[in-house]
């Protein structure tokens, strides 16, 4: 009985953490440009190694 209450509290807390993380990532602009990063990782860095 008590364990169910504890579990519910934990699950809600975890869910709240995820909600908070999502809101934070949204606010910090991680969804502003969804195309750029996907191609940026393909650029070669060979200039730096030279």
């Amino acid at each position, binding site marked *: *009985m008590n364990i*169910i*209450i504890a579990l*519910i509290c934990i699950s*809600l807390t975890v*869910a*709240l953490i995820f*909600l908070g993380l*999502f*809101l934070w990532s*949204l*606010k910090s602009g991680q*969804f*502003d*440009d*969804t*195309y*750029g990063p996907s*191609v*940026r990782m*393909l*650029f*070669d860095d060979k*200039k730096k190694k030279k």
Partner: protein
Amino acid sequence: MAFEVKEQVVCYHCGQLCEEQGFKSEDKIFCCYGCRTVYEILNENNLCEYYSYESTPGINLKYVSEDTYAYLDEAPIKKKLLTFNSDSFARVSFFVPSIHCISCIWLLENLQKLSKGVVKSEVNFARKRVAIDYNPSVVALSEIARVMASLGYAPQVNLSEEKKETTSSKDLLMKLAVAGFGFGNIMLLSFPEYLGLEGTETTLKNLFSYLNIALAVPVTFYSGRDYFSNALQSFKQRQINIDVPIAVGLAALFFRSVYDILSHTGAGYLDSLAGLVFFLLIGRWFQSKTYESLAFDRDFRSYFPLAVQKKNGNEWKPIVIYDLEKGDTIRVRNWEVMPADSLLLDSEAYFDYSFVTGESKPVRVKAGELVYAGGRLVGKPVSLVVEKKTSQSHLTSLWNKEIFQKSGESSYRKMIDLAARRFTWVILAVALITAGYWYWADASQMWLVLTSVLMVACPCALALAAPFTYGNMLRVFGRHGFYLKNADVIERLSKIDTVVFDKTGTITNGAAQLDFIGVMDDRELAWVKTLTSSSSHPLSNLITKSIAVNSSSPVADFFEKPGRGIEGNMGGHHIVVGSAEYVKFTGFLPEISSKVFVSIDGQVRGYFKIETSVREGIEELMKSLHSKKVAMLSGDSEADHDRMKKVFPATASLLFNQNPHDKLEYISALQSASNKVLMLGDGLNDSGALKQSDVGVAITDDTGVFTPSCDGILEGNKLSQLNRFISLSRSATSILKTGFAISFFYNIIALSFAVSGHLTPLIAAILMPISSISVVGFSTLAVNLVSNKTLRS
């Protein structure tokens, strides 16, 4: 004339067709000097990787003039542009419309290799912006802008730039996240109730219910806030829109559930409530998609330069055009736009007024004559004295018209709101009748039944039908080169019965058609080509491109008189190419169109007739528009009358010499005769008409360039599809009506439960999502089916 058949060669940089003998560097061939220069800059700096991500990624450079960006170093301008500024670090964000591919991102993010002092640059592809961190003590802002422009990535600077729009879409996403979170958890906590927890575990049951309330509060009052405030606003305006029944339904759901839970009479309908808000917000989010990098509401200011060279004592200094005063002496360079009505100081100059009047031929202005703001200088730099401030100029007076004062919201009544109004009255009647019945039959049940009716009446499915139908259609249109400002435009487009065209740039396009009228053999043609290829004048370029034979003999004594003609000696012959006066042609000129004359050894051989060509597919378009009224408005003279007559159907009215005001008046005259008008145009001179019309569509061959404020942007090569788009929008409207019917069907079922007092939380929790999902599914499927059928064929 016999032409050699050649293999087609494309420019290594920009991919345009070009001459094999064109500009070469190493083994690469370029179409023009500009493209070759860019390649050489990149090559020197070891940046040729640029060409490895996409083939021919470059942008054809047209007019780059030195120190165009000098004004960027003026303190007041810098202050507005820089988001951060200190002695050794500054940050600026430029809008660069020519960003279009992976190579662009790569090159712009390697800007530090080209311009010392740039620390970091980052491209936002969706918004076509580049954020640049740089060291202002090493490099000036104008220098960075100049480097970018020299590569074809000219930043577009706009001081009156709108504050970032993204905040509203972020706000919506946050509300959606909260609603989704609430929905999921409330549903989870409601399951035990539905599965029969009753009786035995009252503590758990109460705990779940209270948690549900706690979760439902932010869902209702944060995520659903807009519905309440919109409903309140529509009450104030004494109009009922779709948000009114939604807000009433949400309120009924929330308070009835709280009452049920606190009084221990039931489990409440909180899962239905959260689901409702979640679905509604998804609909809103789906509809809110816009084309961020396209600008639909530019006004005349975007056409003007930001700054102009002003004489200050003995030196020229850049000054912001709003600070120009009467009597200031200014200097304007080739291809710059006049910022204010001014008097010419130099002996003569040519101005292209195509922005203002649509007339494409440059106008000759003599010393002391007035040059209107908006004219574009063609030729050598000239000095002028400002006559009127920018805000009072001839061109800007158009914007003082009433139509531009109105806010964005038109008086147009949307179908959804018309449906919602009827719906609301019906629901109100049903609610009152049932309340009356239950008051007489069983007074204790009256409030419960009344709230049930209001709850299920919440037109969630109705509210979702429009966003998904029009939102999907908007995406389909976008994929086919027709970008709309928002989904509402589709509804207006479906009612169009009159189509009005602009001529220059809409019916005709930039590409010119060239015919030589006269006698010349291949050898002579080749000489002319060699001669014209030495000149950078646009007409010379056209002639160079049109002649296919080549000559190896060099030009001697080349001489160019800007704006008049060129001459030179080749193979012992003196060749002159230029205007009629320049080659001393004295014969009779049959018609008024652009001509370039050729004379060899003092003898006039004939002329090149230059006509802008009619866009491909216009005939097809005209055929498809047969059921609609068609008209054409042109700022040009009647020279093209006969040609246009062939293009347009016999019933079309063709009007010439129309100034921007005339165009606007013409549209509003059509509208007062209760026509729904679609206006297609491309220039600033059409902007009044575009704004006045029911749907104003700008035609462009390059979505990155200026388009006047409009409801939609159509790619030039898709113009022939116009009627298909119109008929698609009509299909969208009938799909929407079917969606309404489906949603009413569910509402009737739910209402029958509610009226008879049998609406349990479980039934509500099943019925509401089913109705929403079936409406969404139907409209998405139907739109895709219809659009595939219409646009593929």
